[in-house]
């Protein structure tokens, strides 16, 4: 029998959001347990591995060649007829950055958490939640298959897209079909890609999503697709669309796949509630993924820091009520909720556009000097050239 455990702060899931939460809770004096169901943190990778970079300092992550594969200069957005909009670092601000080795990145964040004082338990899965008087007081767990209990005043769900802990705790994390992209990616070698850019292909090649090319060094690239589940017609559409796209692009058709990665990405508006008595939820589990870009690492880490700090404070104050933990809910909302909503609204519009409209939008932006890339600036440029296209978007202007 494994012995039952007690801790101050219990974090379920050692992805970036979980490790950041554990690190910042430990740094602020709490006794922390970080649970990971896999035997190896960060593996297998379930990510496109593209990441912005301007938020790293804010949360105390030091860029390292151990996990940065290439540093890109910009992004290129391709319309259905493959007109290109190039967005450089100056215009995009934080939206471009690194293509990373996610397994190494996740391991580094777990190391940071451990070095800050957190205990890490591998091969340990949460199998249920413990509640007393309606309050979360820990989880039932299995370590190497053996059941035991962990009790903690503060439990945090950081169990990723397929989160169960949040639902057990009573938070409504359910997604509708339209709120999810089903994703598939091949890591390919022997492809002709430009390591200066992350490429995005929009339109019917990927209904309700996009095809991405995130370049890596030495002729490698992550070639992937996201398709909105409500637009899926047949099983395995993600694979069908991706294979079709690759076959139509000789620079990639000649490549060889050495790795297949799949997964779900939420494209929903943010959750209405992320705390309850004795419980908080963070990262992809809290549907913090940017619904426009599909990126989740930055928001997960930023929220993780706030979550860890609030958890430690709650333990110190001996108050783990929902009212106390609301400081976390308010903290992450103040930091990035508005952007999530804005990008969700933009995405809701984008998924309805025809290929012809996508072409006009990208065409209108050709040669336009955009000081800063914002939905407003883009729409203004499109309006100047194709006023009829922006009729439906007047709410944004």
């Amino acid at each position: 029998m494994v012995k039952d455990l007690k801790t101050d702060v219990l974090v379920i899931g050692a992805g970036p959001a979980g490790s950041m939460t554990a690190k910042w809770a430990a740094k602020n004096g709490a006794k922390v347990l970080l649970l990971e169901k896999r035997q190896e943190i960060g593996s297998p990778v379930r990510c496109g591995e593209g990441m912005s970079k301007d938020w790293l300092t804010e949360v105390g992550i030091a860029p390292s060649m151990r996990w940065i594969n290439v540093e890109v200069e910009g992004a290129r957005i391709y319309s259905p007829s493959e007109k290109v909009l190039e967005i450089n670092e100056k215009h995009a601000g934080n939206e471009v950055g690194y293509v990373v080795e996610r397994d190494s990145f996740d391991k580094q964040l777990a190391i940071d958490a451990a070095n800050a004082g957190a205990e890490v338990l591998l091969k340990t899965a949460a199998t249920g939640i413990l509640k007393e008087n309606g309050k979360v007081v820990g989880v039932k767990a299995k370590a190497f298959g053996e059941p035991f209990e962990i009790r903690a005043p503060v439990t945090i769900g950081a169990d990723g897209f397929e989160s169960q802990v949040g639902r057990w705790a009573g938070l409504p994390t359910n997604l509708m079909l339209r709120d999810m992209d089903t994703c598939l990616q091949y890591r390919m070698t022997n492809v002709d890609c430009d390591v200066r850019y992350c490429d995005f292909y929009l339109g019917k090649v990927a209904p309700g999503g996009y095809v991405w090319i995130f370049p890596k060094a030495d002729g490698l690239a992550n070639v992937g697709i996201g398709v909105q589940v409500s637009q899926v017609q047949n099983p395995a559409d993600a694979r069908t669309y991706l294979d079709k796209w690759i076959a139509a692009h000789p620079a990639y058709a000649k490549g060889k796949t050495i790795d297949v990665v799949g997964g779900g990405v939420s494209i929903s508006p943010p959750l209405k509630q992320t705390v309850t008595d004795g419980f908080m939820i963070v990262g992809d589990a809290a549907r913090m993924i940017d619904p426009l870009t599909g990126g989740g690492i930055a928001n997960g880490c930023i929220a993780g820091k706030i979550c860890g700090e609030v958890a430690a404070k709650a333990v110190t104050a001996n108050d783990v009520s929902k009212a106390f933990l609301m400081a976390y809910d308010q903290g992450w909302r103040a930091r990035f909720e508005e952007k999530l909503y804005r990008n969700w609204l933009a995405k809701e519009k984008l998924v309805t556009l025809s290929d012809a409209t996508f072409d006009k939008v990208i065409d209108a932006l050709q040669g336009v000097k955009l000081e800063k890339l914002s939905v407003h600036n883009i729409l203004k440029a499109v309006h100047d050239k194709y006023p009829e296209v922006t009729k439906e978007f007047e709410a944004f202007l």
Partner: protein
Amino acid sequence: MTGKKDLHIESSGQLCIYCGACVGICPLNCIYLDETRITFDERICTRCEICVKACPVGAIEIG
């Protein structure tokens, strides 16, 4: 089983890549991913087939 369709997940590794997409979308929280094993709770599953759509590789069959 009482009139429910059979549920079959191809989880021998030939199709399923254990990505968890089905787990995240299941409205009843009745799909479990454990390393390289996916299981459904037959008692809860209503055969809504949402997971079939969410699977990127078409590994779930309800017939």
